[in-house]
């Protein structure tokens, strides 16, 4: 980005001969019509991208009559302000937010670690390209699988073949609700389906890594494991940030596996997105104020992560 800014600055300099001669547009500080138009379009698009979130935010702070009687994007200025939707959304979702964090955080960390190690073995180690390509192709295809194609087997696997409820006996003795079996299943499932994307993200990073140091260490007789621990892992930290952020967003946001493994929104172990998917719908119709508060509350962790690490996030999805 800084690269681009500097380019812009040179355009601003009237002393830059070639650029000025070739481009008809003058210094961007001067007001000219195309430039104004450009910013008008950019701001219009900002309105488009923020409108649903803004409308959601103001609606979440309105009373039920306020929701019906005021404009959806108008702030609640005239006495229809209330925080009760947020309070009841928090009551309903607090358990879900905790549950989501309980499985999303470990699943993110574990799948990132596994992905890093696997990508190293498939990239930095020397073996023949056409065989590597075969394994890599399987990993890449694994990213794009529609999860519907594995849903029934995954359900049957956990319900009939891998009954882990007994293995978690210490947890139940500690007073943890037995519903949490589903959360452990969800965590392992998320790890397994997160491995392909994590591996491929790390692989694209390792492929572009400077190989000289690794080559030298290998010639000095360092084992693959030592090279990983001493050289590759410390150098992977920027990519770990990218992968952790991307993977956390993915796992936190996914509904499908939570729906089939946890099943009920009333389960003790229900993650936030699952509870949210059933929020605000009742006999008397929809309570949009509550729905918006719930949506924002559920989105808060991922929005926070995104705003703090937007650079890493865009790198993650662009790879």
């Amino acid at each position, binding site marked *: 980005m800084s690269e681009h800014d500097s380019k812009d600055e040179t355009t601003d300099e009237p002393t830059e001969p070639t650029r000025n001669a*070739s481009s008809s547009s003058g210094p*961007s500080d001067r007001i000219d019509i195309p430039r104004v138009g450009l910013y008008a379009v950019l701001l219009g698009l900002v309105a488009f991208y923020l409108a649903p979130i803004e409308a959601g935010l103001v609606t979440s702070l309105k009373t039920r009559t306020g929701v019906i009687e005021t404009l959806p994007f108008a702030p609640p200025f005239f006495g229809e302000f209330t925080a009760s939707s947020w309070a009841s959304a928090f009551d309903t979702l607090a358990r879900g937010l905790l549950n989501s964090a309980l499985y999303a955080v470990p699943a993110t960390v574990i799948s990132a670690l596994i992905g890093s190690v*696997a990508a190293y073995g498939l990239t930095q180690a020397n073996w023949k390209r056409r065989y590597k390509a075969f394994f890599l192709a399987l990993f890449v295809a694994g990213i*794009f699988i529609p999860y519907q*194609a594995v849903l029934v087997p995954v359900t049957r696997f956990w319900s009939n073949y891998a009954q882990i409820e007994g293995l978690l006996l210490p947890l139940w003795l500690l007073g943890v609700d037995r519903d949490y079996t589903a959360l452990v299943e969800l965590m392992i499932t998320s790890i*397994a389906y997160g491995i392909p994307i994590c591996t491929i993200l790390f692989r694209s990073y390792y492929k572009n890594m400077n190989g000289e140091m690794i080559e030298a260490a290998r010639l000095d007789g360092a084992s693959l494991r030592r090279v990983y621990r001493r050289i590759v892992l410390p150098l992977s930290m920027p990519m770990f940030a990218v992968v952790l952020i991307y993977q956390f967003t993915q796992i936190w*946001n996914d509904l499908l596996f939570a729906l089939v493994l946890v099943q009920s929104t009333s389960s003790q172990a229900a993650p936030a997105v699952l509870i*949210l998917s059933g929020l605000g719908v009742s006999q008397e119709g929809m309570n949009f104020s509550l729905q918006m508060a719930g949506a924002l509350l559920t989105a808060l962790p991922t929005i926070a992560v995104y705003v703090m690490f937007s650079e890493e996030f865009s790198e993650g999805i662009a790879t």
Partner: protein
Amino acid sequence: MRDIFEEQESDDESPDRTADARADGGVTRPGRETASGLERVTNALDERFGEDFVESSPFWFPAFLLMALFVYGAIFWNLLISLTDYEGFLNDPNYSNLDFEMYVRAFNDPNVINASVNTLILVIGFTLATLVIGLLLAILIDRGIRFENTFRTIYLLPMSLSFVVTAQFWLWMYNYNNGVINIVLGVVGLGPIDWLGNQSIVLWAVILALMWQFSGYAMVVYLAGLRAIPDDNYEAAMVDGASTVKMYWRVIIPQLKGATISASVVLMVFALKAFDFLYALVSGYRPPAGTDILATLMVREAYQNTNWAYGSAIAIILFAMALLIIGPYLIYQFRRDNL
């Protein structure tokens, strides 16, 4: 696999020996031909696949195994289930009597045909719209603007949201009486339109909402592509006197082929998975009339109607569609040395 793990251990315990061998400048492991049968096997494997094959396998093989079981094993299992008549809560699938009955049923089921058509419309419409808007955003952002990072962050923000959250927001946007869209249309004298209730437009309303969420993604991919084009390409076109629009159309866009291909594959696959969004729109298995896609139909058949085998068959049809997109993409990537 135990053998390979042990090989790894013994390798680590004798680094000196390996070190000596390596320091000689040897690339493979010399002086080991006289070794045990196990080592002969690993040497043969290394010969076949490359020098580090055995030593590197503890790194990638466990991950590969886990993924292979959960992804490819499960797909195969799904295929088996789709060939049975498995349904109901208490039964188990009977694998001894396999036939294509479920596929025959699927191809004659108007719901499946309808859902396939909707899936195609969604995949193609959503992908094209998102690519065009994403490209537009990328070009605007690449014009050397101020606050570039802020604009980019805002356009990409929806991408960090869950499908479920997006669905809640757009449910409110599309609300008949109080939604932002109808109120804005009302200002210019149009509408109100029943976006989610009118069967002929609801799919396009869904496409708009998904485009809102994913155009930032297309923007990021295109932006990386634009930044990779050398500046003198722009300058040459400008010297030739081409207008800005012409310059982009003739010179710049043709160079974005790679970005277009990878972005469209990802977007198409996202569209195939739009289940979460449609489920959350109605908090249930049956999406608004006119938006039933294969992904929702499959989950409804399996988890609501407990027609497990039938649901699995629909899932295989969906998987075949995904394969039609991924297969050529993998070949393309392999040819470009990206695999």
